[in-house]
């Protein structure tokens, strides 16, 4: 993972470099600092030519270019980049950075030891995400976007999808929340075998069903919601359940 650092304070810059080098040396040899600067303008020039996976940025930067602007420029260039912010104020516009440029992490300038610890922790998180990008992890998650922030929802937590009362939208109910987004149920056909469209406006997750009631034609989900089963889909549903059971055995 290629890391770039932009920090105008030489003291803190040195701290960060040290922390990263130590971490890379002993635990993660794949981490490499490819660029390091005190000038935001330099970094912006560099983005165009160098491939960088992870950015560590000081938000205040005492410069004409605002941290938010740099982050936006990076986002435009590389939508998948990991951005870690360093700030002197705790909570400084944390939500703004999360939702406008999908910042991954925030490090608050405190004591040197604390800061180095936080840098390593943030790097670890970035590395985990970075390696996940390469594998097929995306099939395990359903993503809902709000602003630039992407919320990952584990497929196994999903109860069901339903067409919304608002036009062109779908509702998603899961263990930890409720979301709505633009889409159509037919676009969700790629979901794995545990999902079943049991009605023209419902796709349910078969593992999160509490009770199938074929007589009254509904399924009771674990959160207590009821989803109807279309008459013509009873037999296909039973077949699917049977095949899932066989797979399991």
């Amino acid at each position, binding site marked *: 993972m290629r890391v770039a650092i932009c920090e105008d304070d030489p003291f803190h810059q040195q701290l960060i470099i040290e922390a990263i080098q130590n971490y890379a040396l002993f635990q993660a040899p794949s981490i490499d600092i490819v660029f390091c600067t005190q000038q935001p303008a330099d970094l912006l020039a560099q983005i165009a030519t160098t491939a960088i996976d992870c950015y560590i940025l000081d938000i205040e930067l005492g410069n004409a270019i605002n941290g938010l602007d740099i982050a936006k420029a990076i986002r435009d260039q590389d939508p998948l980049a990991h951005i870690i912010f360093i700030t002197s104020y705790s909570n400084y516009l944390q939500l703004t950075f999360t939702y*406008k440029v999908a910042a991954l992490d925030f490090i608050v300038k405190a004591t040197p030891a604390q800061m180095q610890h936080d840098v390593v922790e943030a790097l670890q998180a970035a590395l985990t995400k970075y390696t996940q990008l390469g594998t097929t992890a995306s099939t395990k998650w359903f993503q809902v976007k*709000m602003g630039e922030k992407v919320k990952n929802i584990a497929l196994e937590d999903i109860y069901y999808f339903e067409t919304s009362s608002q036009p062109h939208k779908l509702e998603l109910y899961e263990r930890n929340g409720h979301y709505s987004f633009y889409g159509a149920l037919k676009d969700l056909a790629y979901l794995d075998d545990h999902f079943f469209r049991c009605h023209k406006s419902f796709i349910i997750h078969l593992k999160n069903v509490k009770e199938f009631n074929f007589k009254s034609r509904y399924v009771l989900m674990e*959160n207590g919601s009821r989803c109807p089963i279309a008459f013509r889909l009873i037999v296909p549903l039973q077949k699917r359940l049977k095949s899932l059971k066989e797979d399991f055995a």
Partner: protein
Amino acid sequence: MVFSMISFINFLMLFGSLFYICNIRPTIQRLMVCLILNAFLGWIALNFSALPWLALLGSVLLNGGFFYRMTKKSTAFLHSASLLIIVILIEYMSLFVVERLQLAASLHILLIIVLFTLALWLYKIFVEKTFHQVTLPIKVELLLVILSTVTIIVFYLIVFLPMHSDIVAASWSKLMMLACYFLFLFLTIWLLLQAVQKEQLAQQQTLAQQDLYTYMGQLENVNREIQKVQHDYANILLSIRGFLDKDNLYGLKKYFEKIAPQEQQPYIASLKQLEQLQLFELKGIVSAKLLQAHTQSIAVHIEIPEPIQSSFIESIDLVKLVGILMDNAIEATVHHQQPHLQLALLSIQTNEQLIIIRNTTKERYADIEKLFQENYSSKGDKRGFGLYNIKQLLHRYPNITLNTYMEEEWFVQEVRIERTRKHASSDL
């Protein structure tokens, strides 16, 4: 055969239209109840044919009552009465047309259906335009019930006046009378609702003004606080100079450790963020909720990085929405060991606005959802209408998206409001 078909059409017209007007999904059970009601009314009409008003009164009361049970709105009675009149009106009208033009009997039914569909559609538009989002005060509701009763009486008088021999002439005069009455009724209701709406708007504005006064008061506090901080800093610098003059580095170090962690109070920083908010009603409600949270010793944090000058939905609805969401957050966080409330108002490019509200909570998502459910009783009577109101808002504004979820111990409410064509001209 023909008789049963006509009664079936009648049934559909009366109940189907009620389902349609009240926006209720007709399930099998509900339809069964309606059928039973219908049968009972038919039985009354047959057995008490000497007292025809009994069946009518029963019809309005029973239908209205049943739909009132489902919608919890007294307007159900009004709908029930006025739909009955519409049905009768349409039947007379088509009878009149058929007789005049010497048309076939089968056309009669067709005409009834077409006319009724048209009338129903118009009525629905009228209802959505006038009744939308107006919470009616008790006296107005009473007035509406009285109007329905008067309507029934007038209706009875007109329909059961002694019949003339000439059926066409009779239906013509009745048609005119009913139409006049109907026009009068609609005009009254419309004027009434207009008045109520105006009154509520004025009320809302007074509230917003009060919120703004609170905000101004808070700003004065902030001013005082900042002056105090400035004074403190002057003192701190003086003390540092004292240590330096004596070359007392150890003392300076200790002193510095003691004062360094002082940061600006988050509450004040949050109030300062409100400067960016140029929608005064929203500024009012946010600062009021901020104060409320602050007095309940909830740590607040607000982010408004860019000026917000316009709203993509009616400002009255925006205020309602933000107020409910912040109430939810405050309610969900007060019992946490470290109650935190965060709010961000962001604009994404020029066509989207985000409202993000996060708070710490010790509840699980399922319990939180229950907390905001309509009529959830464990929290006293006044609570719990939040979710219901929000659902109505979402129904009216397809450009609002709401997500709510738990992220570790944070409860997150995200709202996205997209610019619609209606607001395309307003600048951001």
